[in-house]
């Protein structure tokens, strides 16, 4: 294979995880900002959140490593610290999601809709 092509391939393979992470993050951000439906916003928020899991876990992976459970005859383990941090993040994430959905249900009771625009309309009528 020719030299420059090899180099480009190296950059792509080395950064592919990060690019997907960035794509997920940006897509989540877009959903949160552009969509008026509140359940959709929460789905976008959780996509944003899962992209952060990927952001933390992928630098901790070592090629040729195994999961960080100490066993005889294994020398290389992946980094355990990001795993711990993300375990905490997942559980906190579902707690905040539950709270958000509770708020959505409450808003639906109060306004009869979960669309942002329709709620704004109701406010301007008064």
């Amino acid at each position, binding site marked *: 294979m020719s030299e420059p092509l090899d180099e480009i391939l190296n950059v792509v393979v080395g950064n592919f995880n990060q690019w997907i992470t960035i794509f997920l993050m940006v897509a989540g951000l877009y959903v949160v900002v552009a969509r008026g439906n509140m*359940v959709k916003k929460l789905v976008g928020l959780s996509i944003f959140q899962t992209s952060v899991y990927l952001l933390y876990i992928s630098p901790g992976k070592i090629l040729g490593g195994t999961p960080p459970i100490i066993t005889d005859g294994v020398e290389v383990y992946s980094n355990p610290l990001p795993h711990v941090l993300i375990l905490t993040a997942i559980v906190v994430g579902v707690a905040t999601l*539950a*709270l958000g959905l509770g708020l959505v249900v409450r808003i639906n009771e109060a306004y009869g809709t979960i669309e942002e625009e329709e709620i704004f309309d109701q406010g301007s009528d008064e």
Partner: protein
Amino acid sequence: MVLLTLMALVVIGVVRLRNLFAVVILSSAYSFLMASVLIVLDAVDVAMTEAAVGAGVSTVLMLAALYLTKVEEAAPRHTPLLPMFVAVVIGAALVYGSVDMPNFGDAFTPVNTHVGSGYLVRSIPETGVDNVVSSVLASYRGYDTLGETVVVFTAGIGVLLLLRRNKRSRSKD
């Protein structure tokens, strides 16, 4: 790499679909894909949690919320050009920054040479636990876990209060 690409495709589906039921099911599939990716990245504990919590509990919560509200999303009234522009600019900036990051799977990055490897060495002599993730979670970073349970507890109280007030106002009507 295939899994990651599949995940990106599912997310495009989530962004484009307007039926919220389909969106919720797709996000559940997305969580399972994320769990598979995490297994490939050696994070087995995280993968189990993600499959149980992300794909299981979150989906149930979302479906419950949909049952109490509406399933169809209204058509957007504004053109999404400005958010799209913001998203693309941020994405481009992040991609530009990512080129300088260390390559995937490298063992000698700053991330992998400081505390992480220290925990791997110290876990057996200091705590006697084989699974380094659980020893760090419960022993070295026990306070993090305590804080986490406080957050979950607070969120639980919040949800209870929200839905309880609900019932009272209904009985008034």
